[in-house]
């Protein structure tokens, strides 16, 4: 895994993400309350906070898996404003820019590993089957899973499945990657395999927003730490600084709870 995940220079057209005054309700419940946040191109932002704080919902708003009720989101040069109807074309354009990795991997179980990575390329980038599969094999090789290419995801461990999911998203040349608790469903020693790949991706200069409980990753890899509680950002800044010296009581309690586990 020494080869960087992204070497093709022209493919690394990175974008930043600008979230302003974002709000989201589920029924009467205000899950995101006037969130504003800027993610610089090529930076890694870690989102932490107790469960129910709205961090996953915030992440899912970035690629419109959730529809925000107020505010706006800008990815690269594309802006989506809440309340305006999003055309299918714009929705697909946004999702083309943004790759996402889920806690539960969500590989397609009826496809082989290779088809999981190649099929979206054929449909979305219009690549031929040969081209898409060749690209898929290269990427699988880079995360050490070349020999799994012709198996079904069900035969792979959780850590392997999550690395395949990362590769599936990367194969589409996203300009931003979202990670929604990518290691929470994994045993710690398996989670490391996934974190290693994410670290390489960060080193390669990918813009990343990561919802995580992995404090070491947040401190060592992320450039910016955002702490959420009750649908609001309660604190943000330099990860090491906040962890050493939390400015808010809520942050302190959360950090000590996570670190004591």
């Amino acid at each position, binding site marked *: 895994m020494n080869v960087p995940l992204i070497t093709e220079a022209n493919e690394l057209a990175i974008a930043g993400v600008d979230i302003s005054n974002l709000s989201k309700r589920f029924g009467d419940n205000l899950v995101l309350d006037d969130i504003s946040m800027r993610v610089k191109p090529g930076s890694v932002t870690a989102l932490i906070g107790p469960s129910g704080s709205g961090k996953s919902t915030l992440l899912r708003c970035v690629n419109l*898996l959730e529809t925000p009720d107020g505010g706006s989101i800008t990815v690269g040069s594309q802006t989506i404003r809440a309340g305006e109807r999003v055309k299918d074309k714009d929705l697909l354009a946004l*999702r*083309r820019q943004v790759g996402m990795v889920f806690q*539960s991997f*969500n*590989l*397609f179980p*009826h496809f082989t590993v290779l088809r999981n990575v190649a099929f*979206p390329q054929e449909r979305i980038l219009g690549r031929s089957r040969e081209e898409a599969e060749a690209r898929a094999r290269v990427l699988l090789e880079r995360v050490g899973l070349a020999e799994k290419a012709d198996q079904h995801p069900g035969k792979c461990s959780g850590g392997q499945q999550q690395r395949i999911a990362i590769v599936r*998203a990367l194969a589409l040349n996203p300009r931003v990657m979202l990670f929604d608790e990518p290691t929470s469903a994994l045993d710690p020693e398996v989670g490391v395999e996934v974190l290693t790949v994410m670290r390489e991706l960060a080193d390669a200069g990918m813009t990343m927003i990561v919802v995580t409980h992995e404090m070491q990753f947040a401190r060592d890899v992320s450039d910016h730490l955002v702490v959420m509680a009750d649908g609001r950002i309660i604190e943000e800044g330099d990860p090491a600084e906040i962890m050493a010296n939390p400015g808010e009581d809520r942050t302190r309690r959360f950090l000590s709870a996570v670190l004591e586990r």
Partner: protein
Amino acid sequence: MGDALLIVLLGLPMTLLVTVLAFTIGLIGGIPLMLGLRSRTRAVRLACRFAVDLIRGVPPIVWLFLLYFGITIGAFRLDSLSAAVWGLGIISSAYLAEIYRGGFATLPSGQAEASAALGLGRTVTITRVLAPQALRTSLPSIATYLLSLLKDSSIASTIGVADMVFNATMFARQNPTTAGIVPFFIAAAVYLVISIPVAITARRLDTRLRRTH
């Protein structure tokens, strides 16, 4: 005995024809109905739900009578085979729509989400990502339905379709002193001979698909 066997077997092609045609109509007709049941538009959902419940709420034999005796436009009237095929076909559409819907409902929501997040459109998501998985989970129910349709096709005999049961009944009536229940035993045996291989094949297919999953 030999005569009874021959006469009942002469009805076999008709039994198979009614079953296969009705099943085919159901397999195809179930798709738009299932999409309607999953529609984002409430009115469409309600209309399809109403249609499915209406079709399933009335006994098949009553539907066949309604179609066969009820549809007369001028001199036009459905012949008994068409009435049986379309009647059972429409009923199959309703049952299979419900089976398809159940197959989709068991899929984890993450599948559709992952597909959307990758940027795949709604149609590709349904046809290439969700449907193949839903079909696999519904396969045992679809096979079970086929078996019950094979047997239910015998109600076509009540409107004069010359299937196995029709022929068995005729034979019994024409030979009241000698035939007894023999023709019906023969019909039962033939139904079993067809059903059992279908059931075995379905089970094998199911285990094989589960393994690759």
